[in-house]
């Protein structure tokens, strides 16, 4: 399937038409009309180029000249899963391989009264009202070509609804596995999480790769956090160097809700994460932690938005990066404080260590504040390793590589300790220790 100089846009548009013709009644449903509109918008927008302000440092030219198989073919077995999954992370575990939901590999342990979990396609049939009310309402397909493209192909992915007042004990874990062992593959998972009033749940999205062929993942997650709800959301990326990942997580928060997230990008050829939080309630708190570890020619870009629309809420953000090889990193953190959002507290910090002279980090904090009674702070640092600390450790007999690894590990621990699921912490620590060895 890999061919040089393919035009991905044309291929996808043709693919859409082919799929549409193969549909029976579905083509006439309102849901499919949404898809069709999104495709039209995608055709207008096209893939972004570096001329687009939001894509200045992240060039998708290699992504769009490759062909990918979106049919979901794969040969992943339960045994294969065992080798790559996050050890000891149990709960409601859902597997998507090359985009397709794999019921046989998946386990749902929580009772249906506590949480409904089903593939999005199934929810179109069984939960039409919820789909109608929530789907595609918050993720911005008007301006973001990738989101429009994802909406146009929406169908694979997960629907989760937590009824009001329910505390979901077992975490919800979604694995998105690219099986690129035989050919280039693509997937466009679309998730919709609706968390009711005063409910509580933990989500983890893990992106992993098998094999060395090219892979493209274009993921969108829309998440509603109801009044007084508590949500944790972890995104773990450990893809191959031949993976292009573009992902958007769009969060909408209601009064008194808590949203707590960590994004750990351990590996991947090209990663662009958009984490957009609209704080549309009072007395909310939103936390965003991030860790990225690019090496070789990898590119990792984190764009975040904390959009304060109501008074008396707080957002807090800490992203940290360790860059090696010829890698590049991007951090763009937007804080919007709308006119009504008085008494907002918004804090942002991005710290980077560049370990190689050929690695580059681009940081851009972007604060737009229209309210006058707010507390906002931001800071970014990009530097080399602290030589004084390195010398201190070496003067105690610790070899240079070991001292380096100790310091870098400590630098990352700041973010890792924020993750409240122990098996994920252990997994991250293991991989980072391996990378630093």
């Amino acid at each position, binding site marked *: 399937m890999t061919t040089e100089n393919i035009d991905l846009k044309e291929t996808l548009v043709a693919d859409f038409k082919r799929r549409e013709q193969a549909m029976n009644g579905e083509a006439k449903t309102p849901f499919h009309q949404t898809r069709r509109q999104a495709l039209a918008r995608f055709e207008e927008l096209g893939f972004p180029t570096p001329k687009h302000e939001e894509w200045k440092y992240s060039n998708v030219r290699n992504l769009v000249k490759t062909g990918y198989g979106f049919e979901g073919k794969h040969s992943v077995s339960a045994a294969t899963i065992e080798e790559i999954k996050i050890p000891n992370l149990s709960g409601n575990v859902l597997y998507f391989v090359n985009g397709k939901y794999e019921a046989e590999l998946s386990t749902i342990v929580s009772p249906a009264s506590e949480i409904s979990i089903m593939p999005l396609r199934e929810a179109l049939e069984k939960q039409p009202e919820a789909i109608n009310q929530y789907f595609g309402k918050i993720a911005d397909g008007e301006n973001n070509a990738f989101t429009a493209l994802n909406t146009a192909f929406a169908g694979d992915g997960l629907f989760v609804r937590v009824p009001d007042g329910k505390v979901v004990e077992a975490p919800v874990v979604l694995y998105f596995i690219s099986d690129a062992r035989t050919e280039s593959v693509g997937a466009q998972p679309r998730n919709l999480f609706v968390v009711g009033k005063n409910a509580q749940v933990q989500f983890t999205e893990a992106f992993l790769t098998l094999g060395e062929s090219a892979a493209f993942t274009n993921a969108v997650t829309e998440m509603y956090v109801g009044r007084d709800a508590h949500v944790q959301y972890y995104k773990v990326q450990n893809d191959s160097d031949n993976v292009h990942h573009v992902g958007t997580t769009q969060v909408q928060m209601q009064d008194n809700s808590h949203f707590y997230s960590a994004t750990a990008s351990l590996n991947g050829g090209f990663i662009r994460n958009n984490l957009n939080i609209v704080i549309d309630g009072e007395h909310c708190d939103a936390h965003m932690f991030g860790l990225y570890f690019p090496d070789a020619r990898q590119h990792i870009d984190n764009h975040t938005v904390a959009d304060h629309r109501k008074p008396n809420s707080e957002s807090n953000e800490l992203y940290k990066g360790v860059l090696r090889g010829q890698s590049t990193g991007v951090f763009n953190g937007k804080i919007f404080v709308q006119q009504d959002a008085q008494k907002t507290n918004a804090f942002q910090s991005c710290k980077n260590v560049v370990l190689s002279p050929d690695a580059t980090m681009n940081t851009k904090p972007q604060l737009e504040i229209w309210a006058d009674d707010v507390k906002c702070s931001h800071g970014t640092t990009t530097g080399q390793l602290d030589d004084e*600390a390195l010398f*201190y450790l*070496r*003067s*105690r*007999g610790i070899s240079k590589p070991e*001292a380096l690894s100790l310091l870098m590990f400590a630098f990352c621990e700041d973010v890792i300790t924020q993750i409240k699921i122990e098996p994920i912490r252990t997994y991250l620590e293991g991989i980072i220790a391996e990378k630093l060895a």
Partner: protein
Amino acid sequence: MLKINNLHASIEGKEILRGINLEVKPGEVHAIMGPNGSGKSTLASVLAGREEYEVTSGSVDFEGKNLLELAPEARAAEGIFLAFQYPVEIPGVTTINFLKTAVNEMRKYRGEGPLDAAQFLRMVREKAKLVKMNDSLLKRALNEGFSGGEKKRNEIFQMAVLEPKLAILDETDSGLDIDALRIVAEGVNTLRSPEKATIIVTHYQRLLDYIVPDYVHVLYKGRIVKSGNKELALELEEKGYDWIKEEVEGAIA
């Protein structure tokens, strides 16, 4: 044990040490004194292997080895310990974990296997008791949020754990009140032995009330201009450094 011969060193092209000669034998305590900017701390840094300093000529022999050829970690493993004037805060690395790494790295250098966790803990607790270091500091990030006294005591504690042959205390007394000073000095004295040597770099004489030196050297403009016994330190305390400066400048003129 240590033989420094005509040592010259500079930083960013500026010569700081201009021909240091010093011999330290096992069991001895040497005090290096001198006015600010005389090169005291530079000497300590060069011996420990700080890479910003360039040694332009001279030699340093430590137990038959050319010290200047060794990386800082190798010098440490050979038995040199520098107690820092400003111990570095390292967030995220606990003191205990740091020490365990240090001990095992040094053992590896000497071709020994790592200590098991129980052995290590027992040893560390013993040493903490010896220098009256509070156990609770062990679990905290290295020096992070420690008071000045706690940081200096942590240096002496590390020295107790790592058991160097030659300890270099770089202005360990600076910023300490008299109680903290006494505790630090007690720690150093406890660790003294006929096989080990100590170099104390200090501006003031008061630490020498508690750690009595065998020799006192005055460093001025990058050279040792006067050597004597502990009486010299008392004389300096009383008369300051000006008479030394005058003596040196007079000799040149």
